[in-house]
Structure formats: structure tokens, C-alpha cells
């Protein structure tokens, strides 16, 4: 393990997750529900790409448990999906950092498709096969808003010297 300096601005990471959770459960009209971006995976991808020393699979796992509790899914379902998201982001974080924004979007789409697939797979095993056709819509929406997420998150990241 790489030795680490004292953590700074951990509260920014926590705040980003709280905001993501609020946005995840914010009530939307029925038609807009299937366009809701996957906020928590997006935040996880950001931190895993740009701050892999602090945010990794364990933070992803804990965030996943909170999502499971908030959304009423099986305990561990979102946790599993987010651990895989974090793993994928960490695995290629050095490459993705130097990608132009549109290539990053493609990578994010891939990672979030993995997330959606895990959720769909677990739901399918439980007998919830609803919305099989619309599961990819949030993935595309999330990938499309990635440049803005990146902007906002890196502003906060630099402004508060999170490290």
C-alpha cells in the first residue's frame, strides 16, 4: 500500500454522496422516472477515477448499502453493482484520466451498463422482470451528463483540496 498523507476534505466526498442519494430519491413524475441518471454510480466513478487512494470498493460497498436501504431493494444488490463499478473505474483510472471527454462518456456508459446489468440480473432472479426495455435509458442519460458531472465534481475537488 502506498502511504497516505492525512486525509483532507473528506466531508466533500460525504457531501457528494449525500447529494447523490437525495437526487436518487427525489420524487419525479412517472414519465421522467426512467430518465433519472444513476447519480450514485456517477459520483463513485468520479472519485474512483480521480481519487483512487481514498474512494474504492469499500466506500462503494457502503454507499450501495445506503442506496439499497433507501430504494427498498434487497440488501446488497446496489452494493454489488457499485463494487463492480468502483472496480472497473479503478482498473482503468490511469487511462481514462487522459481520455478526451467524449471517450470518457463512452467509458462511463460502459461502466454504468455493467451497473444496470447487475441490478437487472439480481431483479430477474427475484422475479422482477419489469422495465427490461428501459433499463438502458438511465445509462445513456448518465453518460450524456458525464461532462457536467465531471466539471462540477472537479471544481469541488480542487476548490476544497480534497485528498
Amino acid at each position: 500500500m502506498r502511504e497516505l498523507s492525512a486525509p483532507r476534505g473528506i466531508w466533500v466526498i460525504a457531501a457528494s454522496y449525500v447529494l447523490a442519494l437525495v437526487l436518487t430519491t427525489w420524487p419525479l413524475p412517472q414519465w421522467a422516472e426512467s430518465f433519472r441518471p444513476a447519480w450514485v454510480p456517477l459520483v463513485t466513478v468520479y472519485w474512483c477515477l480521480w481519487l483512487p487512494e481514498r474512494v474504492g470498493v469499500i466506500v462503494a460497498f457502503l454507499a450501495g448499502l445506503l442506496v439499497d436501504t433507501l430504494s427498498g431493494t434487497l440488501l446488497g444488490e446496489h452494493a454489488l453493482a457499485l463494487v463492480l463499478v468502483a472496480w472497473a473505474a479503478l482498473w482503468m483510472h490511469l487511462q481514462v484520466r487522459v481520455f478526451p471527454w467524449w471517450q470518457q462518456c463512452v467509458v462511463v456508459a460502459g461502466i454504468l451498463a455493467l451497473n444496470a446489468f447487475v441490478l437487472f440480473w439480481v431483479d430477474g432472479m427475484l422475479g422482477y422482470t419489469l422495465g427490461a426495455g428501459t433499463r438502458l435509458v438511465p445509462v445513456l442519460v448518465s453518460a450524456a451528463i458525464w461532462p457536467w458531472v465531471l466539471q462540477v465534481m472537479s471544481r469541488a475537488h480542487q476548490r476544497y483540496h480534497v485528498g
Partner: protein
Amino acid sequence: MAVFRRQRSPQLFSSRPAGALRTLLMICMSIMLMVYDHQTGRLKQIHAALATVVWPVQAIVDAPHSLLTWAGDKLATHRSLVAENTQLRSQVLQQDAALQQFAALQQENQRLRDLMQAAAQISGRVSEATILSAALDPYRHLVVIDKGSHDGVYEGQTVLDAFGIVGQVTRADPLASEVTLVSDPGQAIQVEVNRTGLRTLAVGNAELTQLTLPYITNSADLKEGDLIVTSGLGGHYPPGYPVGYITHFERDPAEPFAHVTARTAADLNRGREVLLFWPSQPLPQVELPPKPAPVVKTKKKK
């Protein structure tokens, strides 16, 4: 500093920060949690702790709505209050008149039931709860209410609204509980057709306010508009509460069963107030024949 260290890393696809072992451990833990939660439903403490952690998030999300309601109450004009009061008073009078008849009918029903030696109807006490405006998993029909095990809410409790069955409590955390609506695709409710007494199952589907009745034979006596009520079989719901109205009945000679759908009686997509139901006596449990061999010790209630 960190930048220099990172440059020393020779390979692009560094697996160092992830730690294959740690990732594997987390994956195993998630899967174990899921299996354990699904098989036994015995992770109540963990759930309760996590629910307390996320409660502020639910409160934040619900804040604008409750603030609006509160402001609406505060800023209501005198005239609108008087109008509402008059309307409520006339409503109470009408309902009182209906109740007079109800008391007589109940007596008569009791006498007839005694004659037939049938079990008495289940009555109980109800208490109000408010649905929090938090969006849950979009592929399930769940809501969160603002009453929890601190208020006596228990798992499997029946939830009603002014018009009929809303669903049942599937998780009772200390400060809030999760209610699975009758229209959830994973739910089935034991019903009977009020007019004919035909007993069947109603299961949820993708639509929020729709139920499917998959086991109605083609020869069944059923028509659109028929009221379906809980039959009380299975012991999950008290008998005799409205569940829905038949909206579509189509005989299909090519198939063993007819295509039947119903609209839920409860106002599932608009209502915010629900009623929690505490039966005055335990709901009658149906005795199941003994199983040949115990496969699972405890089974999660559906």
C-alpha cells in the same frame, strides 16, 4: 507527491488501488448479504441501523412537500376554511346517516353468521400515516410511510386508504416503514368477487393502479365493474376490504383462463394519507398440510 509515485507505476491498468482481494471480498460480502436477506429476512438490525442513517436523506427529500402543506395550512384564508368546514360537516352528516344503517346491517350479519356458525368478521383499529415523497426503486411499487416500529407498525401489517387495500408493510424500521403496494409485480392477494363469492388471486403488474386476475376460468360469472374484496384466506389481509373493480374481462377459448384485469380501489397514484390497520384479534391462519421434508426452516413472508 502522489503524482511522482504514480508515475513509477509501470503498467497502465494498475490493479494496485483496487486490490483484487479487497474487491473479491466486497463482492462476496454483497452476495452473502443478498442471499441471507432474501432467504431469511433476518437482517433487521442492520436494516434498522441503515434506515436510521438514511433517514435525514428521506427527510430532506420530503421537506419541500411537507413545507408546502404546512404553508398551505398556515396561509389558508378564513373563507376557504369555512367552506371546507361546511363541506366536511355535511359529509359527516351523510356518513352518520349511512352508519346508522351499517350498525343494523352489522347486527343482522352477525346473527346470520351465528346461524351459519361462520367466523366473525375481523374488525380493528386504524391509525393515520403519511406517505413520504421519496422515490424508491422504479421497477417495484413501494412507498415509505412516516410511521415505524416505534409507533407499533409491524411487518405484514395491512395498509388501507379511504377506498380500499393499499398494500402491506414489508419492512418496519424504527422511524419509517416500507409498504409494498398490492399492484407490485411481486405481490399476490387473496380476493373474492363480492357479487358471486368466487375466490381467486389478484397479482400486481407493471401498471401502478392495475391488478391481473390470472386464474379466472372462461366460464366464470364475472362482469366489468364487479367489486373484488379481500377473502382473508392466507391470513395476510383481513377479509372483506375492497381491493379493486374489474375493468376488463375477456374470455379466450384458446387458453385455460380468461384475461381479467382490475383497477385498484385504493387511490395508489395520488393519495398521500394512508391508514395502518391493527386487527382486534389475530387474523385466522390457514393450516397447511405438513410438508414431506423440511427444506428451509424459516420462509420469508411474501
